[in-house]
């Protein structure tokens, strides 16, 4: 019998793409749907998803949780848990469009939440850590419930199907954000499960990933020392946790995070100028277990920007492009050309070289 995400490890091949308007101007999800549709053949209909940033301006101070429920009981248990830890500012089922190509959808809910101040104070945790732990706990412990988006002023929309169908299903042409990422999935050994689709998110971090990492269990077992639980057993999940851990909890810059995940070879580091040489050496000495090997190209969405990163051997394709204030990242150039035929600049970043596009004025 086939098992689903979380029961066994599930690597997959995929298409990723992303766009950001660095001036902060909003765009609907439409262009992303068009772009990912071009790379139809990189998916197999077993998963697609999107992340939009700046899409909830009216609730921007609240954590927007998106949940899948498979059973009524799961929803009841989860909502009880949520109520014990958060003030629910607003909740509703997410509006979707019925499509013949998208089947077996679970119940999909959205909540805008604020941590209960007293509970938060008693936890002696930083607010974001408090929220992250709640998310991990629901996902690890509540059968049939899954939090698939938990950031502020951003949202993840995903499911089983081709990504362009998922986009229509979630009516993303109706959302407006300054940045979008999306993902088409080609999982290799499961039928695909809604929770297992990409992007994977924690707080405002979202990750779309194309590849199959060989370091998975080394990364996972290391991350689980710090309270993360890799319930999905997917690459995207562990990469998200690594970025969260290093960036949010350890305070590394995204540049530094990239030097851990896709560290330069020792031989390359030895040829670098100071201080890069000693800084990168130090990062590798501190976090050797967070080196990610095997093919991957990822787009990390975060509040205010996108990070593109490929493995250090560049075993997966990835191109970046710019046109005016807009910047594009994609597995294939064709997806970018589809939505912006005339570009100012297009290039393929070297393996292991991070590309960070941010809103003007923001420094990660």
């Amino acid at each position, binding site marked *: 019998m086939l098992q689903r995400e979380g029961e*066994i*490890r*599930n*690597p*997959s*091949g995929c298409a990723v793409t992303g766009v950001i308007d660095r001036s902060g101007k909003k765009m609907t999800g439409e262009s992303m749907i068009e772009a990912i549709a071009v790379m139809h053949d990189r998916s197999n209909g077993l998963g697609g998803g999107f992340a939009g940033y700046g899409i909830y301006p009216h609730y921007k101070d609240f954590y927007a949780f998106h949940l899948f429920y498979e059973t009524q009981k799961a929803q009841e248990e989860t909502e009880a848990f949520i109520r014990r830890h958060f003030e629910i500012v607003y909740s509703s089922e997410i509006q979707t469009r019925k499509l013949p190509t998208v089947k077996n959808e679970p119940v999909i809910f959205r909540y805008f939440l604020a941590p209960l101040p007293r509970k938060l104070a008693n936890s002696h945790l930083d607010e974001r850590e408090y929220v992250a732990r709640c998310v991990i706990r629901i996902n690890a412990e509540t059968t049939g419930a899954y939090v698939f988006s938990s950031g502020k002023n951003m949202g993840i929309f995903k499911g089983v199907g081709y990504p362009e169908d998922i986009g229509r299903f979630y009516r993303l042409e109706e959302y407006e954000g300054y940045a979008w990422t999306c993902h088409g999935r080609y999982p*290799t*050994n499961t039928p695909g499960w809604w929770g297992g689709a990409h992007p994977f998110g924690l707080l405002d971090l979202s990750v779309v990933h194309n*590849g*199959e*990492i*060989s*370091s*998975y*269990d*080394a*990364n996972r*077992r*290391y991350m*689980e*020392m*710090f309270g993360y639980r890799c319930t999905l057993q997917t690459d995207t999940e562990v990469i998200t946790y690594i970025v969260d851990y290093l960036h949010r909890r*350890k*305070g*590394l810059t995204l540049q*530094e995070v990239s030097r851990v995940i896709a*560290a330069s*070879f*020792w*031989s390359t580091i030895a040829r670098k100028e100071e*201080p890069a040489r*000693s*800084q990168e050496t*130090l*990062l*590798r*000495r*501190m*976090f*050797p*277990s967070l*080196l*990610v*090997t*095997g*093919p991957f190209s990822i787009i990390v969405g975060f509040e205010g920007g996108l990070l593109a990163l490929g493995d*250090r*051997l560049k*075993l997966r394709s990835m191109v970046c492009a710019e046109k005016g204030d807009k910047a594009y990242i994609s597995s294939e150039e064709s997806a970018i050309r589809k939505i912006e035929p005339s570009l100012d600049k297009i290039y393929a970043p070297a393996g292991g070289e991070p590309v960070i596009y941010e809103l003007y004025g923001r420094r990660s």
Partner: protein
Amino acid sequence: MDLYIRPDYEVVRNTDRCIACRVCERQCANEVHTFDPETGKMRADESKCVNCHRCVSLCPTHALKIVKTDNTYRENANWSAQTINEVYRQANTGGVLLSSMGNPKPFPVFWDKMLLNASQVTNPPIDPLREPMETQLWLGKRTAKIERDEKGLLKDTLAPQLKLSVPILFSAMSYGSISYNAHESLARAAEELGTYYNTGEGGLHRDFYRYGKNTIVQVASGRFGVHKEYLETAAAIEIKMGQGAKPGIGGHLPGAKISADVSETRMIPQGVDAISPAPHHDIYSIEDLKQLVDSLKEATEHKKPIIVKIAAVHNAAAIASGIARSGADIIAIDGFRGGTGAAPTRIRDNVGIPIEMALAQIDARLRDEGIRDEVSILVGGSIRSSADVVKAIALGADACYIGTAALLALGCHLCRSCHTGKCNWGIATQRPDLVKRLNPDLAYKRLVNLVSAWKHEIEEIMGGMGINSLEALRGNRLMLRGIGLTDTELRLLGIRYAGESL
């Protein structure tokens, strides 16, 4: 000739091939071979033979072989010939049976019951001849605060670490138990390979201070040869609490092996047996260990990592947890198949647990407690090949100690007679005429060759897995699958059975 015990071996000489060159006679320290001038032929007294193969190896016409005798007692599945002979031997002498090298009994070898993964289709294998393949690593604590200087650059807040270019170190073998030339070979090989050798508890000969940056010095219960300069010269200091071949037992170097040089190096009298006690008499508890760790750190200005070596015993995981919290930087675990220069046979063959189980449990335990970064894990005790190294690292080790394999590279034939001090290969002896049989110019290259070969194999295996750095292999247990293992064994090893998918 013993009335009760017949020789275990027969020296078989093909007289058609023997040219009576007498090399066997000249090369046998046990005086097995003699030339009979009357007949012009060679003779052998096999009661003295330890089956070290020196004569076999050097015979230019391949006229010699040593075979197991087919002289048998009446068949008995319970009382093997060896068991019977051991009873005779003890009845003869009233003494404890002594043995050398590692446990030879047919216990399961779990390395051989684990299979490795390789990439196919979804994830490309990496060709180590075309792409960089990293076997470099650092040993020590990895817990560090993220602190930045005024320019925003990260400060190096790490405790001292050891840099290795391969995940293989030469394990502790003392000068005294092995020869000067063996030590020189290990030291030179460690230097060339960018790794470390370990003095064992025999101190460090003055001549080898120049290899200090590749030397791990041991502080053992006998405190032989320990002084300030010794500690300062080393790259790291290892506190030896136990040894896989003889957990719970101290050491005993016979006076015959204590030459003038050994005596000076160990700071003990010449010709008198050197006894290291079973416990450190200043360590009767984990908090005492912490004090010694702290003392050694203070003595060396916190510049050197401290290793604590223990034998793999039943409670190893909990002990390791205690060590990880003692301030030690590295834990070395020695499995029950590990070698020794001399151990009571019953201890060697019956005490301790396999390194595979100890490693799996210790790694898991330290992760469960969130303190895996407090220490690196070194494992030893019969690491026989690059595949063993890869499996150990995938189980969770940082690097491996090799002892027996290193000695084999030097020419050891595992006759397990080190305790007699008459090693015909010049390794486990202090007799000058035998010591000179090990030419370090050749021997160190053999060690370099061995480790280089293993390094290449590790690179190949890692490349096949799609991994291009050892860091991504460490603890990557999904790369392992068990075969012929029970559910309990799989659970303890933390791996799935062969055929179970990802």
